[in-house]
């Protein structure tokens, strides 16, 4: 058994490529668990970061610094009464959250957390991801329609219009990234792993390629992806101050929590696309400039170091806790949590482990950066109005995306073009 696991771990392919059903299942379970845990963390982090931006403390009561708040919320949502409105279309109402959650999780099939850390590597990976993630709008329309209520209906209509129009800009930006894999090398790819490897072989992240074209395409995608996931400042489908709660107004309890889960995993999914396409996926920064075994060694300590810093933060928190009996449990809890983080850090120091998690670490760090941006936007921007949103989508992002695509193609074909022109001139 152990030999089998060891034998598998030393292979250099994803389970999907190897056709290994057992490991594929294990990976799928790992990804689902990982995404769910990430959503829980995101829940806590968003509340805390937003709170600190807004000169509040955020959750402080449930567990030390509110660390158990997401679990308390999850528990509350699970045991809440499940209400289906009388006039709702029951079947559709029931299936809408399932559709939304399923599409959000399915996209993670092709997300490459590392060269071998993906469930599978499809040769149409990007297309698959784009296709599946846009299915999410179906669930939202179903939810809005089946609720048989005005606010959800308007929310879902807004959402469908928004997602459809931003998908085009998003697609154009993606195409220009895909184009970058083929230009100059001649062999293009739609595979997510292939795209990262193309960036590795070209010694650049695509965000810096053909400057500023790569950056522009990235910017178009980064804006479109916020709209695609219905987050501030494009959160019109669930605009609280206008539509109460938008498409999930009539949902409660567990079904509502599925929407919540889907929203956050969709955010993670689109951020993963952005990271894969433009930010070099699982690659660590400066693999060539700071190359060599010494730098590799130094960078391999970073995952452990991150956990040590987090643990140190926890220990600092225990020191700063009020020294009164009422806070004893919280202090012990925070200390234990810190110890746990420190232990994880120690495990990450083991060479076999640290080599294996390097790529996952960098991927997660890059995605976390986008998650922070999401929270930051939410704390800063007012909300767009519907017509303005459409204007931004169709009149700004779409022409920019198209222009960048054409410019990228021309730039990439420059050698051939100039050769052709000189040929004609001669």
């Amino acid at each position: 058994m152990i030999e089998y696991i060891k034998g598998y771990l030393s292979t250099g392919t994803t389970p999907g490529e190897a056709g290994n059903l057992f490991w594929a299942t294990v990976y799928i379970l790992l990804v689902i668990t990982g995404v769910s845990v990430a959503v829980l963390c995101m829940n806590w982090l968003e509340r805390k970061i937003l709170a600190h931006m807004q000169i509040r403390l955020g959750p402080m009561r449930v567990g030390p610094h509110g660390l158990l708040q997401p679990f308390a919320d999850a528990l509350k949502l699970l045991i809440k009464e499940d209400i289906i409105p009388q006039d709702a279309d029951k079947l559709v109402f029931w299936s809408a959250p399932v559709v939304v959650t399923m599409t959000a999780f399915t996209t993670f099939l092709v997300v490459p957390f590392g060269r071998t850390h993906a469930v599978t590597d499809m040769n149409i990976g990007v297309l698959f991801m784009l296709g599946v993630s846009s299915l999410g709008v179906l669930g939202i329309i179903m939810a809005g329609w089946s609720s048989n209520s005005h606010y959800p209906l308007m929310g879902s209509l807004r959402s469908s219009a928004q997602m459809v129009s931003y998908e085009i800009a998003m697609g154009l930006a993606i195409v220009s990234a895909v184009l970058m894999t083929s230009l100059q090398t001649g062999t293009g790819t739609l595979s997510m792993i292939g795209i990262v490897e193309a960036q590795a072989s070209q010694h650049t992240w695509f965000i810096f390629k053909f400057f500023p074209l790569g950056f522009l395409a990235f910017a178009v995608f980064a804006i479109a992806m916020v709209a695609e996931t219905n987050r501030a400042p494009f959160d019109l489908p669930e605009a609280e101050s206008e539509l109460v709660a938008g498409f999930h107004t009539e949902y409660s309890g567990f079904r509502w929590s599925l929407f919540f889960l889907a929203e956050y995993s969709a955010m993670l999914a689109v951020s993963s696309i952005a990271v894969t396409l433009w930010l070099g996926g699982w690659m660590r920064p400066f693999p060539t400039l700071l190359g060599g075994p010494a730098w590799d060694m130094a960078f391999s300590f970073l995952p452990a170091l991150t956990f040590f810093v987090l643990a140190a933060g926890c220990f600092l928190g225990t020191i700063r806790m009020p020294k009164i009996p009422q806070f004893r449990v919280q202090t012990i809890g925070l200390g234990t949590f810190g110890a746990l983080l420190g232990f994880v850090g120690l495990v990450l120091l083991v060479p076999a482990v640290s080599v294996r998690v390097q790529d996952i670490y960098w991927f997660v760090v890059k995605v976390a950066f986008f998650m922070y941006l999401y929270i930051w936007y939410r704390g800063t921007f007012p909300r767009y109005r519907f017509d303005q949103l459409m204007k931004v989508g169709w009149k700004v992002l779409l022409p920019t995306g198209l222009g960048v695509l054409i410019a990228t193609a021309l730039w990439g074909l420059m050698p051939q073009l100039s050769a052709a022109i000189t040929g004609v001139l001669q």
Partner: protein
Amino acid sequence: MSKRTDYLDLDTKDETFLDATELVLNMGPQHPSTHGVLRVILKLDGEKVLGTECVIGYLHRGVEKIAENRTYAMFNPYVDRMDYVAAVSNGLGYCEAVEKLLSVEAPPRAQYLRVILTELCRIASHQVWLGTHALDIGAITPLFYCFRDREEVLKIFEKYCGARLTTHAFRIGGCIYEAYEGFEQDCKKFCDAFLPKLDEYEELLTTNRIWVERTKGVGILNPEDCIALGVTGPVLRASGVKWDLRKAQPYESYKDFDFEIPTGVNGDTYDRYLVRIEEMRQAVRIIRQAVDGLPQGPIMAKVPKVIKPPVGEVYHSIEAPKGELGYFIVSDASTQPYRVRVRPPSFVNLQALDKMVRGLLVADVVAVIGTLDIVLGEVDR
């Protein structure tokens, strides 16, 4: 008979885009951004507003009727509960109206104290407006900044009269509380600290692209409409009408102070935002002057223990943060008023809602309700 178009007839069908049936959407009374229990019935063509109708009265407490069964002094705390975010202004209006009926005048020191507290209250009221208005438009952070700084005003109120919100700070004939030890310093400290904070709010919003797009050209009200509808306060001034009761009919000691009346040009939501922001700056100016010139002397005029005004009627209005706040009091020479009628600015300003939002989108309805700065306690009384 010609067809009326100024009210919402839910039975008639208007022509809509592609002949789709219009949608009647009931917004409120339980809705996150109708500022309390306002109910707005919207007639929509998709997202476009064809007409609105406000249904009010969910917070009706019969304040005017209560007045007929209370003595003049007993009714004083009730007025604080009308516009509960600007309680001090309400109290000022009522006390002055009764003083006018009694033909007494508050002593100079009381007048200055009243001005300081009322202007502080104006700042507090505008801060609540700014926070909630920004929240309606989707910016959630300014709310917390505004409430943080409003807290300082409320602390001054609390130190002065023991209450933070429904202050009951003034009495008929003057003030009952002498300024506490360090009142002047507190006010000055607040003024010094507040101006940079105001710049901070402006930094978040004034040049914010989305904020400007959401507010410019939204809910335009031209001066003629304003006057026809009886709209007052910052909403009127944003349309370019320089009408402020503090200058037009100076009450208290406002003629002693040097301040500007900010006005707008376009009468849109953005102008109303700028006018209110500038009003906060002017309020700081007034507070500084009043604190510096605070005279010594008594704080209470000679007022009989039992207030029995002579037979007669009086209308007195002041410039509350939201507009002209008027009290019409009829006295039958008994200890209780025969009739009290309040002219609340929110109630009158709310009438402009339909005119402002026709043809706009649902999101603008929310923005316009926010920019009108209504308080339902005052609308329904």
